[in-house]
């Protein structure tokens, strides 16, 4: 990881190498033989994923951002089988700066798609933790049932998430959050929340 640039201000780290590593890391990772058995690691990973969901539901976006590594990505692919973000647009592909853009936009008082803001419940289940090797980042799979209420309407969005986690200064942080929506290649109404 480069530390020469502040990823909140400039986006040097989203490079062709980064994309290539990302696509490789999110390819074939859900292998039984890679399931982590260490209960302490599993508990830490699950706690982070649940905390992330809670902070989103509490609209605590500044705290939520601290769960991400400085160089991170939030990625909602546009195809159910996944897609290469170099080749295709995604429902969302945010780097650190664009995540902060999103949070900033919500704070302007003029983000009409979130005025009134959505009330959400991120229900997270079926958590499984994978690791390809002793020093590899953790890959956490979870199912997501996201209930949203806004402007008189309720809706349910569902899918599954893959969190890629690494320890930074002794704390588990999110390198990548990938959200695989069941409806990822369908027309979505007001996709202005973080899934």
């Amino acid at each position, binding site marked *: 990881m480069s530390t020469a*640039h502040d990823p909140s*201000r*400039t*986006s*040097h*780290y*989203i*490079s*062709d190498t*980064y*994309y290539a590593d990302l696509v490789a890391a999110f390819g074939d990772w859900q292998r039984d033989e890679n399931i982590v058995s260490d209960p302490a690691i599993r508990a830490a990973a699950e706690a982070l994923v649940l905390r992330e969901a809670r902070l989103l539901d509490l609209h605590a976006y500044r705290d939520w951002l601290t769960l991400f590594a400085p160089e991170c*990505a939030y990625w909602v692919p*546009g*195809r159910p089988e996944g*897609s290469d*973000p*170099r*080749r*295709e*647009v*995604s*429902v*969302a*592909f*945010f*780097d650190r*700066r*664009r995540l902060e*853009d*999103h949070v*900033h*936009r*919500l704070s*302007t*008082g*003029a*983000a*009409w*798609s979130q005025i009134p803001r959505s009330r959400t419940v991120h229900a997270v289940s079926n958590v499984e933790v994978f690791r390809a090797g002793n020093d590899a980042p953790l890959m956490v799979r979870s199912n997501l049932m996201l209930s949203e209420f806004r*402007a008189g309407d309720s809706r349910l969005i569902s899918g599954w998430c893959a969190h890629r986690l690494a320890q930074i200064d002794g704390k588990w942080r999110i390198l990548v959050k990938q959200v695989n929506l069941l409806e990822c*290649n*369908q*027309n*979505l*109404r*007001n*996709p*202005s929340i973080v899934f």
Partner: protein
Amino acid sequence: MPSHPLNQAPLPIGRTNPDYDWDQLVHEDRVHRVVYTAPDIFEAEMTNIFGGVWVYLAHESQIPRNDDYVTVRLGLRPLIVLRDSSGKYRALYNRCTHRGATLCREASGSAKVFQCAYHGWTFMNTGELRGVPWPEGYASDLRNSCFNLAQVPRVESYRGFIFGTLNPDAPALADYLGPVREPIDEWLDRHPGSRVVVRDANRLKFHGNWKLAYDNSADGYHVKFSHRSLLEMENRFKADNEKGMSFYKDHPDDAPMYVRYFGNGHHFKDKRPNVEKRPGALWEIEGLAPGMEFFEEEIRKRLGENAPRALDLASSEPVNINVFPNLLILGNHIQVIEPVSVTETNTTWYATAVVDEDGDLGETVDLINAFRMRTQEGFPAFGEVDDATNFEEIQRGLAAPEDEWVYMHRGLGIPGRFTTGADGSITGPATDEVFMRETFKEWKRLMANPPAIEIRREV
């Protein structure tokens, strides 16, 4: 044998001419709320508008090889748009002639034949009935063109954009497009090989009438208000507001951009005059996006003095080119408006990518396209969501039946406000609603004169 002729004329069923006095609904300065809310008007539009004019169906790059297809809709009609096995573009009704089931249930793919999942009737990708199971059970030979799939009788392309119409009296496509071809040409010609290819889309929908999206497409008046959060976001590191859509930051009518009405409902908001005409000028106003600094450094390192042109290819073209009723070319997107019901609309924002047609971009074309994907994700995520919310809130507001009128009279009656070109186009300041007024004149003409639409079954 049935007593009716198999090829009789369509029965006079359907509401192509609901009982409205269109002159009472569409005035010079305002339209009645029911044009956005009445189910019978919507039903009539699906034939009088979406059957009567050339409607955008698909882009050639979505079906690059023979036998490739995509499924789309023409108004509410499910279609399979394809290149048949001989390379001819066709738009087949995605509806088995037997009992009406859709034949093809995939969004895209490749097929020489389509077999109905219900009773196994099979059709060639020309639309011709190839066979039915146990034909001896029919008293007459089904190999009669009346059992071929219905198809859109006229399908034509303009520089990669495939259109279809059910109206035998419609002019040739090029004539229907008329002068809007010029900005389309310019939009294409800035790319290597003068073309783009379509990629995946950002797909949105809203609970509102389809015309709210079309009305918005050349509207320079809403930007500073509807998109205030985006304007602030794009420029949060800059006190002097120079990124993205910042040419709306002051009075937009003081800027050199303009809005132009072309006729046939087509219009154009041209923001290019706000930007200097030199390589790299587009790049300089491009909003921040993931990987931007990596991309710029890499392109400058690899291409040197040719870098600005390559950087511009990843930047948004500052135009809104709107082809009535459903094609909006904006930035680098090909947006398609898809009516679902009187109060439901899909807007599908197809991304486009650059092709290294001239061979001078080399591997940098992949870098350009990777970053071009990121720039294209920005507006749907941070801009369109606010517009769509405002469209939905218009639809809520229009529920009030006795508050009848929707105004679009900005600029009307101000002397010297407009100029009329030799081609009949009307040009006005960026915030002017002249394009909406003119489009509704055309809408009224089409609604008051239902077309004699036709389908074809001969292959």
